């Protein structure tokens, strides 16, 4: 019964999300929705790496950048169709993530975090300086509008649908993954690495798996960003960007996929709402982060849980 209800709610939410553009005609808000979808893909995959497997990666923007550069180069220089470049972007990000995690499998905890930070910076600096390959600081401009079979994706609304498809693909596959045997292994590693290894879980293998899968989705998001923005530059893939993703994951709630989306929405909407207060924007965002986290260490998820438990108390009293 409970499960049936969940499935019905899920189908309703999916249907609503596809109907949304018929209610919201404003291009400004559609643009924000597109950003929310893209960051959701990035943060869901980062939550798999950080929230479920406890590998704090502060270099996620690099994999996002790898996806973006792959698509940009394939589309502008080799005139690839969009679908194969999207897939290749994901796969190349996965492959590089695999190489990085396999070489650093000995390195643990904060030292791993350092390596991801450094990797992100190396990626950005190489893209900035290797002018022949990546266009240097200017980047690559003039990406053609992507075409999926006969669907030419050009307007804000088209991109919304493309983003939505990618987003639901990410959300569904990741929810299935974290509920499977793999997901339980990831959680075991997060809770206690040593205990997990004594229970016969191959810690190194599962860490590599989690990291590479997460990078795959980051590559997809990068590909989406490249065609949506029609131009990419190294300044979009900085350390600040990686930090922003981590903030969104933590603000939503570590280790919960649905909560991650709320973190993304809060951060992006706060950025938009505070835009008129340009000079104090970062200050206000920082204040929100500190106050929410000090009060509710498990983020927005923690607030929801608190409300839920309060409601429960109230209903008990009624009985």
């Amino acid at each position, binding site marked *: 019964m409970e499960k049936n209800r969940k499935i019905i709610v899920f189908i309703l939410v999916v249907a609503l999300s596809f109907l949304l553009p018929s209610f919201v005609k404003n291009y400004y808000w559609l643009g924000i929705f597109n950003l929310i979808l893209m960051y959701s893909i990035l943060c869901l995959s980062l939550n798999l790496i*950080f929230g479920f497997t*406890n590998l*704090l990666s502060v270099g996620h923007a690099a994999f996002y950048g790898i996806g973006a550069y792959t698509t940009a180069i394939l589309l502008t220089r080799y005139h690839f169709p969009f679908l194969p470049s999207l897939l290749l972007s994901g796969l190349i990000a996965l492959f590089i993530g695999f190489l990085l995690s396999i*070489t*650093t499998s*000995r*390195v*643990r905890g*904060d*030292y791993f*975090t*350092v*390596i991801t*930070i*450094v*990797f992100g*910076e*190396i990626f950005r*600096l*190489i893209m900035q*300086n290797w002018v022949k390959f990546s266009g240097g600081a200017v980047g690559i401009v003039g990406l053609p509008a992507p075409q999926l079979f006969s669907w030419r994706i050009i307007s804000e609304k088209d991109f919304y649908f493309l983003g939505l498809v990618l987003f639901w693909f990410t959300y569904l596959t990741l929810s299935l993954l974290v509920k499977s045997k793999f997901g339980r292994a990831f959680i075991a590693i997060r809770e206690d690495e*040593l*205990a997990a290894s004594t229970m016969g879980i191959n810690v190194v293998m599962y860490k590599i798996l989690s990291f590479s899968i997460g990078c795959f989705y980051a590559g997809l998001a990068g590909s989406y960003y490249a065609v949506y923005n029609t131009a990419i530059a190294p300044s979009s893939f900085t*350390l600040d960007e990686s*930090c922003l993703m*981590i*903030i969104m994951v*933590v*603000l939503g709630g*570590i280790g919960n996929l649905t909560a991650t989306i709320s973190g993304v929405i809060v951060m992006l909407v706060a950025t938009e709402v505070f835009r008129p207060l340009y*000079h*104090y*924007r*970062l*200050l206000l*965002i*920082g*204040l*929100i*982060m*500190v106050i929410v*986290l*000090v009060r509710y*260490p*498990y983020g927005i998820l923690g607030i929801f849980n608190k409300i839920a438990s309060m409601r429960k108390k109230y209903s008990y009293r009624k009985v």
Partner: protein
Amino acid sequence: MFIEILIVGLSLGAIYALIAIGYSMVYGILKLMNFAHGDTYAFGSFICWMLLTKYDLNPILSIIIAMIVGGVIASIVEILAYRPLRAPEYRNISMISALGVAYIIQNTSENFWSRQVHSFPSIISAPFVSILGIQIPTTQYLTLGIVIVVVGGLNLFLKYHKVGKAILCASQDIPASSLMGIPINRTISIVYLLGGMIGVIGGVLYASSYNVLSISMGFSGTIVAFEASVFGGIGSINGALVGALILGLLHSLVGFYISTAYRDVITFAVLIIVLLVRPKGILGRYVEEKV
């Protein structure tokens, strides 16, 4: 030429060391990556700059005031944003609230002093000194001297003073040392105070030897401190010193002999290789994991 570059690199490394030590001390005691460290010392350096240029204060006096401001800010931040999240299960979360604090400090100093690069006056009047035919700016020697005094003093303080011993105890085991009667909250505040103060010295020295001061110094300082302490082995003060000196040397040697554009790429690559060979840094201790 080589010796000049060597000395410039060493003094650059010495400045990095001052920034990294505060960072590494906090890490040693709380296992917290303090993302706000860089912005705190940048704030302190801006205070010093303001006192020097606007109020024409004596350099030594203004450095001391700036140090106190930096230290006090660091410990206030600790009380408001990190103390509630000190439990081990909130470790990753306190790092993000540190990032939030970094945003707040950065934005505040941006509103006070704008984002542009300011020129910082040189504190010392004699610009160059020549020893054995090698021309070296005086600031470089002064920097090296200050670093030796600070690091030596800090080591003595930790070894012989009561508070220093308490800091060492707390960095080994917080619950056990609180059972032994060490006031944990006060000790941690002192660590932040010291870290902030030493960081401000580093910031002021950096600004006065390169005559520039900007807000972006804060975040890049955090990264430099992070790299240096990882090079040496996070949590140990002497490790941070060694790591910072190596980093400074690498920066100046690679920048001069190979390429300035790829300077950071090459240092980062060296850092990764060091970590692959010695996953706990150069002076890092290997601690057996207890169950």
